[in-house]
Structure formats: C-alpha cells, structure tokens
C-alpha cells in the first residue's frame, strides 16, 4: 500500500534515528498498541473501529443461498476487503491487485474464516439445498497503518454483534421470520482471533540471520502509516484468548530467529487478552442498551418445574 506517498530522506533518517533513541513520532513506546475505539451503527452487525487515525468499518449481511456441493452441511461465509481512494489517494478504486492489498485480504481471510471463528455448520438450513450465506464487507475509511489489526477487530466484533432473522423449517419449506415478529438470533462464534502486527527496522545495513549481541534491529507494535512505509520487515501473529496461535504471517523482509518470534507472541498475547475483553465488554454494553425494555416487556409463564 501507499507506494506513492513521498517521504524525504531526511524524514526517513530522522524516524530511524528517533527509533534508535527509543522514540516514536506519536510518543508511544515500542510495545504500545493504539487505543481501540469500537462503535456500533443502527443495525446489527455494523461496527466501526478506530485506532488513532485509522478507521475501518465492517458490515455483516446475510441471505439464503445454496451450499457448495461438496460441503452440503456448511453455510457460506465471505469476507470482502476492497480499498477505495477514501482511505487515501494512494489506493485505487477497484484495484486490489497490489501486493499489500492482497496480503491484507489474505491475512484477514486466514485469521477469521479459515481459523473457523464462525461456526459455518450452524448456518446450514436444509442440508444440500439451503443455507445462510454470511457476508462481511470491510470498508477502509481512513488509513494510518494497522489495517490488518483493525480489520480483524472490526470483523470479529461485527460477527459477534450481528443477528440473523429466525427461521423455521417444515419439511422443505423454510419460513424466514421478520425481525419484528421473532427475536433474531446471533451467529455461532467459536473463538475470537486477534491480529497483532510487528514492524522491524534495521538501522544498520547488515542483515544477520543469527542475531548476536551486535544486532541492533528494532521491533515495534502497531506501526503508523509513516512507520509502515519505512519498515524493513513485518510479522503478523494471530492469537486467541485460549493461547492458541491461529496463524503467523511473515512475508519476506528481515529474517528473524525463533527466540524473538516467541517473545513477540508473548507480547501479542497480552494485547489479545485485553482486546478480547474489550470486544466482549462493548458487545455486552450495546446489548444492554438495545434491550433496555426487554425485561419489562417479556412475559414468561410461571411454571412449576
């Protein structure tokens, strides 16, 4: 991404020099993830995530479709990440063939869809003929780095927040009940993967495969756009609260050794834990807000058990 933003040599040198002296432009420490702001729209499954100046919106929608022939018991789940010049003029409309765009889309796809975060078997209505097709549209609104991390939070929060209309099946006849007729139902979420991206800088020109004491490489978490433009390597690890590594993606760039990979995973875990808690918390709060009157309106039969 962002190949056309011009950065002067002085600026690049300064950012590196500042990193060497333990400083980042925005005043964060190397391991500090930006504060994540999550807000909801009017409908279920409409989530906007803000991290600094980065802004991503995710919108979940669903419709009834036919399942794949080789997977008759599974529903469909699609994540669409398309960039537009809204996030910055460096993005071209409808052109998602750039290396970074493809990488971003693939990592989100791997982290959320292929890790089985959404229970696709629960989307099956009538085996082999009808199922729910769930679609997540990720809109990049403003770009200041960290698209992968922000998108992942947005998609997961939106999936947790979304409710699909209730259905009843009578033989081959499927009835979809409108939302005002029957309470819509949540999707089955099996775990919440969280992506954390590390960026590596090598202030010296020598590349080392075995990192000795002389190694002066710098690793920072959650780079901003300028840092992303200047970095020499990147690593995205996806973890969940259960301490499971969902995926590790490191496409080229500076080589890294096993020890620092382990170390980075540990750092990422504390962030994962905190973010998971935050997501569940905002979902709970929003739910309470939406169902303010639920307890007043609900009527239950007093039944002896």
């Amino acid at each position, binding site marked *: 991404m962002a190949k056309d933003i011009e950065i002067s040599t002085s600026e690049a040198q300064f950012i590196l020099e500042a990193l060497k002296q333990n400083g980042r432009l925005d005043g964060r420490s190397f391991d500090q993830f930006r504060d994540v702001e999550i807000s909801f729209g009017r409908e279920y499954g409409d989530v906007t995530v803000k991290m600094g100046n980065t802004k991503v919106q995710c919108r979940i929608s669903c419709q009834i479709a036919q399942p794949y022939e080789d997977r008759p018991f599974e529903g469909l789940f699609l994540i669409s990440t398309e960039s537009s010049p809204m996030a910055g*003029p460096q993005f071209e409309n409808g052109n998602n063939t750039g290396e970074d765009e493809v990488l971003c889309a693939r990592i989100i796809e791997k982290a959320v869809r292929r890790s089985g975060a959404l229970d696709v078997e629960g989307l099956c209505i009538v085996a082999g003929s009808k199922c729910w097709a769930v679609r997540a549209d990720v809109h990049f609104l403003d770009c200041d780095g960290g698209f992968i991390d922000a998108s992942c939070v947005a998609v997961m929060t939106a999936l947790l927040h979304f409710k699909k209309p209730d259905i009843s099946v009578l033989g081959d006849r499927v009835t979809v009940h409108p939302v005002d007729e029957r309470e819509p139902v949540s999707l089955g979420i099996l775990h919440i993967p969280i992506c954390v991206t590390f960026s590596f800088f090598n202030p010296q020109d020598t590349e080392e495969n075995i990192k000795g004491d002389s190694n002066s490489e710098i690793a920072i978490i959650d780079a901003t756009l300028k840092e992303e433009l200047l970095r020499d390597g990147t690593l995205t690890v996806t973890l969940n609260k259960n301490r499971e590594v969902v995926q590790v993606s490191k496409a080229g760039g500076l080589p890294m050794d096993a020890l620092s990979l382990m170390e980075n995973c540990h750092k990422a875990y504390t962030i994962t834990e905190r973010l998971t808690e935050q997501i569940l918390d905002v979902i709970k709060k929003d739910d309470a807000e939406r169902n303010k009157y639920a307890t007043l309106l609900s009527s239950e039969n007093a039944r002896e058990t």
Partner: protein
Amino acid sequence: MSTLIFPGDQLNIDSEQPTTLGPGLYFDPVTQEIGPTNAGVEVIANTKRGQTVYVDYDSKRYIPAVGDYVIGIIVGQFSDSYKVSLSSFSSSVTLSYMAFPNASKKNKPTLKVGDLVYARVCAAEKELEAEIECLDSTTGQDAGFGLLEGGIVIDVTLGFARHLLFDKDFPLLKILSSFTQFEVAIGVNGKIWVKCEEVKNTLACYRSIIDCQKTSVSEYKNTIKSHFKNIVDAAGGK
C-alpha cells in the same frame, strides 16, 4: 470587518471602483460577473488603485502561486532540471539547475532524489507545470533557499502555515524557542521543517506543532510544556 461568504453569494464590494481579485474569487467570462468560489471570510482592502478583494479560507491541498515560499521533495532528476513534489499526489513542479545562486553551465547543483529543498515559486500558470527557484531572482544572489539537511517535516493545513509565516504575533515559535534551540523553515504548501541539535527535542517540537493545530492559542504554552516534560521524563525513565 469580516463577513463569512459561500459559493454563489453576492460580494459586498463597491462595483464602481476598479477591483483586484485575489484567491477564492472567479470572474465568469460569459456572464462577466464576479463571485466567490470558496467558503471563508471575505476580505476587502482599499488600495491606492481601488480595492482588493479575496476570500480567506483554510485547506489542505496546495496550488502553486507566484511568490510563495515552499518546501518540496526532489522526486526526479533531468539533464537540466529537477522534478520536485510540493505535496503528495499533486502534479510535480520544475526546479531548473540555473535557478541556484552562482549557477553556470559547469557549476551544477548537487541535490539528490529524496532531498528536501526550500524554494520560491517563480512561475505558476494553471495550464503549465509550475516552476520554483532557489535564489532571489531580482539580484541573482543566495536568499536563504536551498537544501534542508536532516530534521523532520510536519504536515499542517495551509492556513496554519500562513499564520506561522506571516502573523508576526503568532506565539507558537516564540514559545517553542523558550524550550529549545531550533532551525525552522515554513512552506506555505503546508509543510514545516524543524531541526534541533538533539533528536528528542525535535520530537517534542514535532508533537507540539501537531497538537497546537487543534488547540487554541492560549493553550499553546501548556501543550508545548507537557510535550517537553514528557521527553525529559522518558529520558529519565530509561
């Protein structure tokens, strides 16, 4: 007196007097009418030869105008000129090898791609590529233009950059100078270049200027103070 004006509004000028049009105004060649094209403050100034009218507005994208001091990045090099970018994604401008002090056919400037340069816009026609120069074209002498070495560039809105450059009472630089020594160059294309002896002071300047854009003038002192305090604290904690 300042009136806010929007596109399509009527100007409050005396139509009898000869009028000079500044930025934010458009003379329609078909209807022969003058109208504002931007949302901002209508400023009318009386001069010897009549009146000058313009709309004062703030924006983010720079459009070259003759006489402006600008900061650019060298993005290309040709046999007799450099290609310079004044803001990302805009059309680039030309900086001729001859537009340097003491330039001759043999004495060529030694700027490289990626270098920062402080210059003056010397030609700007909307149909053509604009040109900039690194000398005082009236005397042919050095006038403080040229390569900016090291330091950092801060992107600000054009209005803010104009405040910094033209408003003599604008306190930001004065307050900054009470905390650290620094070199500064202000380009009205919304770029401010700052360089201090020490990296941490430059960092504090960078953060101060960015934050001051969003706060009111009376808050500048506190904002800047807190940034310099943070720098000292960070160094102490290490």
